């Protein structure tokens, strides 16, 4: 890959050490799916610190429930995957975690979303402050119609971050694994990048504001397998410093990158009118994919339904 060729040795070393060296499984080396899962399982078995605590969380759009009774913790420095069939409310749920659902007037959140013990929907919580800590990457890359540099600098600027903006931009682009590809054209319009580059730009843009958590709503669904692979590598690197929650339709992706997996399903209500999403199973990814506790999970992850 070209960017690795042009990378200077010091930088490569820094990146290697920051990505935890051998501890992080690479996703395309050898016959490794299970090995990778084991390695992560061991890591996950260590001390876990919950950052999110979801208590009976439900979301309704205009009175119609989309997802309900979601109860699970999300752990720090792990990748948590939300999987399930279309319409099961996983995207709806992830948008609760940084109050993006506030932008939809008809959406109403019930239950409690605790973040480091604070109720995110408490009356004295400003959603803008929530989003400063909890960044988000969307399904379709959504770069701003500005230069690459200004895309990255936008967040730090609106948040009034102090410091050398050039350094902030470079650091964010390096963390987003994009620096070597774009360092010579920082002033060109971001719309000229490929889809995969645009999505990494969006990730780098989210990193520039120094969040604690990154939410990713199907970040690879518009990308080809090579771009997807790069973003998965990137997520594994980022896990060292950030907590990541990812919604994905791609079960291999969930199996490759995540530590914990929540499987959602869609159920008809008692009155058989509305379809509502619920969590069927939440456990270590390895367990969900190799030894699921619920037959619906098994049917889904083995491809019998869905």
């Amino acid at each position, binding site marked *: 890959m070209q960017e690795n060729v042009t990378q200077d040795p010091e930088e490569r070393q820094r990146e290697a050490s920051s990505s935890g060296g051998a501890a992080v499984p690479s996703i395309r080396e050898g016959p490794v799916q299970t090995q990778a899962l084991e390695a992560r399982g061991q890591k996950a078995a260590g001390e876990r610190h919950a950052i999110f605590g979801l208590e009976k969380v439900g979301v309704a759009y205009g009175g119609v429930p989309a997802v309900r009774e979601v109860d699970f913790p999300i752990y720090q420095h792990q990748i948590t995957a939300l999987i399930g069939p279309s319409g099961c409310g996983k995207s709806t749920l992830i948008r609760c975690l940084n109050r993006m659902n506030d932008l939809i007037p008809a959406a109403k959140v019930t239950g409690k979303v605790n973040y480091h013990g604070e109720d995110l929907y408490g009356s004295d919580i400003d959603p803008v402050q929530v989003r400063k800590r909890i960044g988000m990457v*969307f399904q379709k890359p959504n770069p701003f119609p500005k230069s690459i540099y200004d895309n990255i600098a936008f967040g730090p600027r609106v948040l009034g971050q102090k410091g050398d903006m050039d350094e902030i931009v470079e650091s964010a682009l390096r963390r987003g694994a994009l620096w070597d590809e774009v360092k010579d054209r920082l002033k060109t319009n971001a719309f000229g990048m490929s889809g995969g580059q645009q999505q990494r730009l969006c990730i780098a843009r989210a990193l520039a504001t120094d969040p604690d958590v990154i939410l990713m709503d199907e970040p690879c669904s518009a990308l080809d397998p090579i771009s997807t692979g790069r973003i998965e590598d990137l997520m594994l690197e980022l896990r060292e410093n950030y907590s990541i929650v990812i919604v994905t339709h791609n079960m291999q992706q969930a199996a490759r990158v995540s530590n914990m997996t929540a499987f959602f399903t869609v159920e008809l209500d008692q009155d058989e009118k509305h379809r509502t999403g619920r969590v069927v199973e939440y456990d270590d990814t390895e367990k969900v994919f190799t030894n699921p506790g619920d037959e619906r999970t098994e049917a889904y992850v083995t491809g019998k339904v869905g």
Partner: protein
Amino acid sequence: MSVAEAGVTRKAVERTTRGQQVRELGFRAALLFSLSFGFLALAVLLIDVLLDGASLISYDFLAKFPSQIFPERSGISSSLQGTLYLMVLTAVFIVPVGLATAVYLEEYADRERWWNQLVEVNIQNLAAVPSIVYGILGLTFIVRGALDLGAVLLAGALTLGLLVLPVVIVVSREAIRAVPSSIREGSMALGATQWQTIWKQTLPGALPGIATGVILALSRAIGETAPLILVGAIAFVPFNPDPNPAEGQYSAIPITILSSVSNPDRDVQALASGAIIVLLAILLVMNAGAVYLRNRYEQKW
């Protein structure tokens, strides 16, 4: 010949029948015929006006004041400057007011609420109100009544502004709506406030569309005659408008045109053609500017 009639053997490719060809041609001719109405009307207008007025166009015509004694030496300086001044003042009024209204309606208003729906319907209706009615409104509330400004340039600009404000609002709303919500979401997800998102993402993205709309609205405003008559623009003004828009009398090109053609003196009538050429030239420049802005800066999402 249908397939059924031809039986089992059917041609690989059917030939076009004579009738089909005629229908195609006839349809195309009908379209061109319709097009020719607009085109011919414009051509006749331009040729007629140019024949009558082209000889009048000179620096003097633009720089001199009207004269009742020597119509052949008259100029339209006062009404040209009046029109340009009106345009600037109208823009100063409609841009902030129209933009703010559009931003409120698109970004803040809850469309479920009846009062917001009422505002929306009213703006659509206002765009269709005849301009003379705005003239009466301006006369009643701006020249006299509440504001009591008198028949000054500012009153004319405010009246024209009210007249084209609905257009500006509608166009600005469309431009704002064309900015995809993914841009707003991207901005909000970075911790930007709604105000920062509007100011730094939505409005810059919508600006080319808004600018185009404002130019088109202004070009409609400077061509209006009826409201200006009502709010007291004057046909014969042998001096340029006072720099203070709340002082003194003023004229405008459409008013000059109207008074010239209604004058019995043939020499004075000829002035109208010259004034029309000047007005058309201004409109052409503005519309070309709008097209240029749209093509050059319009954002492809």
